[in-house]
Each structure stands twice: as C-alpha cells, then as structure tokens.
C-alpha cells in the first residue's frame, strides 16, 4: 500500500518509465519474434504450439523486462526463457511432441521442384535429428551464437557442443548425399 502511495507521488516518472519499457518491448518483439518463433517451431515441431510458446515467452519477457540490462544479450535471454517455457510444457502434459513422427512439414517454399524436394528432405531430417544435436544447430544457425555462447545457453562444455554440431551436420550431409539410395531401400 505504501509502495503504491509512493508510486503515485512520482507518477510522472513512473509513467515515463512505463513508456520507455513499452518502447523497449516493442522493439524487442519486432526485432526478435521471427527468430524466436522459428526456434520454437524447430524445438517442438508444431506451428500452433510454437506460436503458444512464443506468446508465453514474450509475456514472461515483458514481466521481467527490467532484469534485461544489456540489449545485446536479449536474444540469448529470450531463448533461455523459451527453453524453460518449452520444458514447462512437458511438465504440464505428459505428451511429447518431439516423439511424434514429423511427417507433416508445411510446404511453404517456392522455387524449382528439385530445390524444393531437397529442402523438404532437409527439413524432415532436421526435425528427425535428436534434440541434443538439433538444438546446438538451431542456436548456431538461427541464433547466430558462437560455440562458447551455445555452451553457456545449453549449460554444456564447449567441446560437447562442437561434437554435437559435428554430428548434426554429418548426419544431414549423409542424407543429402544419398537421398536416392535411401529412397530405393525404403521402396
């Protein structure tokens, strides 16, 4: 009660604080929502769930925006919130989206059919990657983080991260280099 009374006394500074907080949040949303949404999508493999997680992530970010001191760290900060939010989803429902076979990937790309097919194959393979290999790759390619930064976000040591990145790329490369053989063996 005394707090709110004090707040009222300095209401002008409070409201100007609110305006600047709002501005920070606006620019944060505009600058990073694409990356955050894509990261969420590749983490969970579902468009709608990805949107939900993104919503929750940004809402939490708003609530604790004051704790973000350095704007350069914003992306890593948001991704940390997002990962926690994603983990929370598994606590809530005992239903693992990643275990569902990712047969369904939206066709959202134009271009030649050959490119298209290759990309489609790559997307399927990325979603099939083990999460422990997929996540460092997402952080590196979508997030643009260095090995060190990835290690920090995932709470691993750098060598482990580099090994996982190596394996992730290796697996994807193999698939792309022998798609026909694979197709034949399947057929």
């Amino acid at each position, binding site marked *: *009660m005394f707090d*709110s009374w004090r707040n009222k006394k300095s209401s002008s500074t409070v409201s100007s604080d609110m305006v600047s907080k709002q501005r920070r*949040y*606006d620019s944060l*949303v*505009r600058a990073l*929502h*694409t990356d955050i*949404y*894509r990261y969420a*999508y*590749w983490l969970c493999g579902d*468009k709608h769930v990805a*949107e939900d997680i*993104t*919503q929750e992530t*940004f*809402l939490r970010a*708003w609530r604790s925006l004051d704790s973000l001191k350095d704007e350069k760290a914003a992306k890593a900060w948001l991704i940390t919130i997002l990962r926690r939010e994603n983990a929370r989803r598994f606590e809530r429902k005992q239903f693992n989206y990643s275990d569902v076979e990712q047969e369904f990937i*939206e066709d*959202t790309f134009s271009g030649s059919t050959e490119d298209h097919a*290759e*990309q489609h194959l*790559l*997307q399927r393979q*990325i979603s099939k990657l083990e999460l422990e290999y997929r996540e460092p*790759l*997402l952080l*590196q*390619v*979508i997030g643009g983080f*260095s*090995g060190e930064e990835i290690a920090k976000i995932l709470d691993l040591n750098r060598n482990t*991260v*580099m*090994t996982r*990145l*190596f394996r992730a*790329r*290796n697996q*994807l*490369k193999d698939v*792309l280099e022998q798609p026909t053989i694979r197709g034949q063996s399947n057929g």
Partner: protein
Amino acid sequence: MDELKFRRQAYGEPNNQDPEFLQAAMESAEREAFLNDLKGLDNKIENALKIDVPDDLAAKLLLRQQLQHHHSQRRRTGFAFAMVASVAFLAGITFTLLRMGPVDLGQHALAHVYHEDKALHVDQNVQYQDVNFQLASLNSSSNMKFTQQPGKVFYSTYCDFQGVQSLHLVMQGESGKVTLFIVPLEDRMVLDEAFADNKYKGMGFETDNAYMLLVGEGAEDLNYVKNEIKQTFI
C-alpha cells in the same frame, strides 16, 4: 592444424572466422573445396530452417502484452480501492464504537454551556407548548412534557449529547439564568448528582423519562429551577 582437427572444426562451425582456421583452410585446394561444400550445406540448412512466420505474430504479441498490462493495472487499482474501502469501513466502526462509550453528562453539560455562550444572552420568551413540541420530537419513546409554564424560558433548542438528541433550555432562576438540559434516558450515560467548575455549579437528577441537568452560577438558582421542574414536568 592437422586434418582431423580441421575437419572437426569445419563441421562444427563452417563459418568460423578464426584466423588459424582460415589459414588452415587455405593450405590445400581439397580443404577449400571441403569447406565450401560444408558452407553450401549450411546455406541449405539455413534456408530450410526459415519456415514462414505468421504475418500477424508481432501484432499478436504486442496485443497480448497490452491486455495483460491493462489487466494487471486494473487489478492494482482494484486492490487500492479495496484498501481504501476497508480503511474507511474500519474508521466508521471505530467512530461508532467510540460514541457508544460511557458519557459523563456533567462535564459534557458544562462544556456545552461554555460552547453555546450566546444562549445565555438571548431572550426568545419561549412558551411551554413550544418546548413540549420540541420534546415530543426527541428521539424517545416516552411522552415527556411540561404541564404548565415553568417560569420564564429564554431559549430553547435541540442539542447533541454524544449522539443523543437532547433539549437545551435557558430558564429564569431565582436571581440568574439557569441552563437546563433534558436528555432522554440511555444506559451508557453516567449522571453526577452535583458537579462544578470554578464558574458554574451543576446538578443532575433523574425523572421517569429523562436526565435533567441544571447548570447555573448559584446553588439557589439551581434549586429554584429544580422545584419548578418537579412541579411542572412529567
């Protein structure tokens, strides 16, 4: 940098800008081709990861936050309102309870006389019927009245004895004026038979329906008026 380390680094981070790594990549045409191959793969991965983002996602995120913010502000003002309301409620209760406390009629009567000093300086020559009319409208179930004029009445008005509506009269005593308070009976009143300060003397007695409080400068005046009242008031 040996081949194995180079390959591991190339796989791990093909776009590594570390000078040592770049130097190692230049060492042979094979290495360069190998690295370019991986960079090509990385471009493909990057494009593959670029799934479409819903057009209105940014707008939705901002809207959701605005709503949330609005709600929390509403909650905060609601809380403040509840606090103010309960404080007001508490103040009301306290005030009512305080008024319920025992009332010392004597001290109150003296204070009243001092407070309404002008009452002793007016002469309205009030008839006892008018006084009866005022008595009848006091907040009391019983019928108090004067049967006849109790000497001269200079002044008559309602007054408040700690929340009890009473009558304030100024009457002619033997030599000076006497103030009479008629207070309907109530449990929490404490009546002194006699009270005084250095200017006025007072006496109190109880009739069937009311406390009578007399305040005047001399004891003779008080007794005189007391007798008048005993004869005329029922």
